[in-house]
């Protein structure tokens, strides 16, 4: 594959490598409380019969969406603790713990692969890494993903899954909102499609920047999507929140999403969407 050779620092990963799943492990759905054998749950892409979509990792999304092989882009970026930030813990310690626990470098993974033979770059947020919070690394990796898309004329998809800005990078983190939004104007100028895919949860500075700026904004069912977190909104209005507030369905109803897509239809939907941009 020719597009493959252009990459300098890529890592190639074989997809669909079936993980060994021990018998006797069960998944209990937090929504309907049903208990499902983990094998069945994985086969259902971690979606319960009741419609509950369990959070999944970036790697799992890549495996679902990409045809097979994909190449990771800028895998070696790490946070540098520019403010020597410390609260009850040192930021450097938080980073180290997260890196060891998740085997990830930061809260986003970017990869180039094919969806039904069509090129796509996906930047997917890692919620398990400090709540998927957006700091300098997230901003830079999205920025580089955009450069890569511009250079190679490939559509971009960002999978958001984040509590918002990374407080430990304070104003650096805030400016990633401006950085990513500014870079997206270049993609728009070049008329390269950008699909924003919002998953559970997408809040704060991520919602208030790239997550809401897709040529099309789509979401998984039942995801929490909002700017202010539900607890803050509740405190502000001093009342209980209406049922379904800030869910994907609510956000669709209020006009900020194009459609909601179930995980099992994700790949085909993206493939069709890409085709429609192209043909």
């Amino acid at each position, binding site marked *: 594959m020719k597009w493959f050779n252009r990459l300098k620092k890529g890592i190639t990963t074989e997809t669909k490598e079936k993980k060994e799943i021990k018998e006797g492990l069960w998944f209990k759905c937090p929504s309907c409380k049903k208990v499902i054998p983990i094998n069945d749950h994985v086969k259902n892409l971690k979606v319960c019969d009741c419609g509950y979509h369990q959070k999944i990792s970036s790697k799992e999304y890549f495996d679902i969406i990409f045809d097979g092989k994909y190449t990771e882009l800028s895998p070696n970026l790490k946070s540098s603790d520019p403010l020597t930030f410390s*609260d009850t813990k040192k930021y450097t310690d938080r980073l180290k713990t997260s890196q060891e626990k998740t085997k990830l470098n930061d809260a986003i993974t970017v990869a180039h692969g094919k969806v039904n033979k069509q090129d796509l770059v996906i930047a997917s947020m890692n919620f398990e890494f400090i709540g998927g919070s957006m700091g300098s690394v997230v901003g830079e990796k999205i920025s580089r993903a955009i450069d890569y898309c511009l250079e190679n004329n490939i559509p971009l998809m960002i999978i958001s899954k984040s509590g918002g800005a990374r407080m430990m990078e304070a*104003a*650096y983190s805030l*400016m990633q909102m*401006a950085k990513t939004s500014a870079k997206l104007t270049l993609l728009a100028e070049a008329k390269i499609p950008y699909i924003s895919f919002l998953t559970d949860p997408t809040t704060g500075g991520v919602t208030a920047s790239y997550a809401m700026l897709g040529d099309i904004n789509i979401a998984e069912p039942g995801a929490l999507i909002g*700017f202010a977190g539900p607890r803050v909104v509740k405190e502000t209005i001093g009342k209980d929140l209406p049922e379904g507030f800030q869910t994907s369905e609510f956000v669709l109803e209020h006009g900020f999403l194009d459609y909601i897509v179930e995980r099992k239809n994700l790949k085909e939907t993206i493939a069709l969407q890409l085709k429609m941009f192209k043909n």
Partner: protein
Amino acid sequence: MILLDFEKPIEDLLKQLTKLEEVEKEGNIDVSSAKAELEKKINDKRKEITKNLTPWQRVQLSRHPERPYTLDYIKYITKGKFIELHGDRTVKDDKAMIGGFGDVDGKTVMFIGQQKGTNTKTRQYRNFGMANPEGYRKALRLMKLAEKFDKPIVTFIDTPGAYPGLEAEERGQGEAIARNLFEMSKLKVPVICIIIGEGASGGALGIGVGDVVIMLENTWYSVISPESCSSILWRSWDYKIDAANALKLTSADMKKNGLIDCVIKEPLGGAHVNPEKMFATVKTAIKKRIKELSELSKEELVKKRIEKFANMGEFIEE
């Protein structure tokens, strides 16, 4: 004058000054030399106090109830030649975000900014400077209007945050701010953003993407307020001072970290001690910056603006 806790050392001196001024009004005794001496004492004391202000004390100054707000700046800078424009053309007119054309010594400028109130009633009317989505959309409408007629834009930032209400969520607070970041990045006219008080998070940045971003000396700008940061990271409201230190939110830190372009010094004791002097300094800066930026082509202007923000961030590449 309302004094903050750390300004207490000048309280007695100010009282003495008020008394002297009363005596002076009666006109029987010449108090001019005593008054001058007292004023010098107050100045010296203020210098001493302001020399080593902590980040939290600067946060307090940024919220001083007598601090001038957006419309005060506009009124002075335009000498009253300002036409306020209302509404986002979709939902309503957001009173927390104001804007309109103003005359700056013969040159038309689009002014936009969050507006706080000065008493219980007007604070509520202005929603404490916390805009709803329609505020951000009104701001964008006015920016596009300025671009259409080739007028430079000046934004005054002073907000404790975008309003986190139920209706704000329904009407897409996140989308409204995101849209502004996107659109401001490519406006083909000079954009100057000045933080005149509080610069809290996305609510501030929502009108903060400019060619030149300026902070007044005693303002703060960060991703979260020290109080909220304390409550989230320390799980208690008691660590606001630690949070203010940790966030590096002062004008000096923001300049040092390359996240803003310039700091404007405030009059001794803060903008509220001598507002006219503050306004004059800000006006001079605005005129100078507009002149500089007007020399760039539209393409250069946009390219430089995007590059500036694209370069923000610190990371390691292994």
